[in-house]
C-alpha cells in the first residue's frame, strides 16, 4: 500500500521542475485571469463570518424583546447591506477578470 502512495506522490512532485518549461501561447493570460477570478471571490469568507455574527446578535435582540421586531428588522437589513460591500468588491474584480 505504501508503494502506491510513494508512486503517486513522486509523480505529482515531478511536475515542479517542469513548471518553468511552460511556453505561453495566446490563452495564457486568460487562463491565469480565470484562476485570479477564482481567488478574488475568496473575500466572501470574512464577509460571511461577519454578517453571520451580526445576524446572530439581531436574533438575540428579537428574542429578548419581541415587540421591537420591525425596527430590528429594518436596522438589520440596512447594516447587513453596508457590511456586504467589501464582499461585493471581490465579485467586481472577478467580473473584470473573466470578461477580459
Amino acid at each position, binding site marked *: 500500500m505504501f508503494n502506491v502512495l510513494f508512486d503517486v506522490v513522486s509523480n505529482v512532485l515531478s511536475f515542479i521542475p517542469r513548471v518553468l518549461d511552460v511556453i505561453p501561447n495566446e490563452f495564457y493570460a486568460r487562463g491565469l485571469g480565470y484562476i485570479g477570478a477564482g481567488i478574488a471571490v475568496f473575500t466572501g469568507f470574512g464577509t460571511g463570518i461577519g454578517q453571520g455574527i451580526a445576524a446572530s446578535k439581531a436574533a438575540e435582540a428579537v428574542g429578548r424583546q419581541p415587540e421591537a421586531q420591525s425596527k430590528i428588522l429594518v436596522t438589520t*437589513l*440596512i447594516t447587513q*447591506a*453596508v457590511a456586504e*460591500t467589501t464582499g*461585493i468588491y471581490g*465579485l*467586481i474584480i472577478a*467580473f473584470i477578470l473573466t470578461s477580459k
Partner: protein
Amino acid sequence: MLQWLSDYITHLPSYFIISLIVMTVIALFAIYFGYRVERLSPKDKPSKPITLVLVAIDGINAFIKNYIGKHWTYVAPFALTMGIYVFLSNIMGVIAVESPTQFTAITFSMSITAFFVIQSTGIISQGWRHFLGVFQPLAPLAPLNIVSEFVPIVSMALRLFGNIASGALLLGLLYRVSGWFSIIITPAFHLVFDIGFGTIQTLVIVLLTIIFASMKVKEEDFQ
C-alpha cells in the same frame, strides 16, 4: 452635421433609452399629481390616489425633517426622486428588459450627484466653515478626512452595481440552462434577486444619502 447626429442617436446603448423612458414616466406622474394637488381647495375631499400620494410624501418629509432639521427642502426632493428611480430601474428585469442600474455609468452618475447634494447641504448650513470640517477632531488627520469624503462616491455606486449586476448574471445563466422549464424555476429567483435585493438596495442608498447629509449639518437646533 445631421448625419453625425442621427448616427449618434441610433448608436446609443439600450440601457440609456430605457433609463430615459423610466425618467419620462416618473416625470409625467409627478406633473399630473402636482397639478391635481395644486388645484385642490381646502374644502374638497380628495380622491383615493391623491390621498395616498399626500400621505406618502408627508411621511417621507417628516422622516427627513427628523434628520436634517431646518434645511430639509434642499435634500428631500433629490432623495425621494433618486429612491423612486432606483427602485423602478431595479425592477426592470422582471419585464425581460435590461435594468439600467446594472451598468456603472448610471450608478456612478447617481452617486456623484449625491456627493454634490451632500456637500451643498454642508455649505448651505454652515457657510464657508464647512470646509474647516476636515480639521475637526485632530488637525493632522486632515488627509484621511479628505479621502473619506470622496470614498462614498465609489462605495455607493459599486454596492448598487454589484448587487443588481450579479443578480442579472445569475438569471441569465439560469435561463440558458433551463430552456423551456424556465417558467417554473425562474419566478422565485426573480422575486429574490430583482425585487428583494432591489428594494433593499434602494432603502440603503436613500438612507445613506440622508445620513451623510445629516452629518454635515451642525449649528441648527434640530441637530
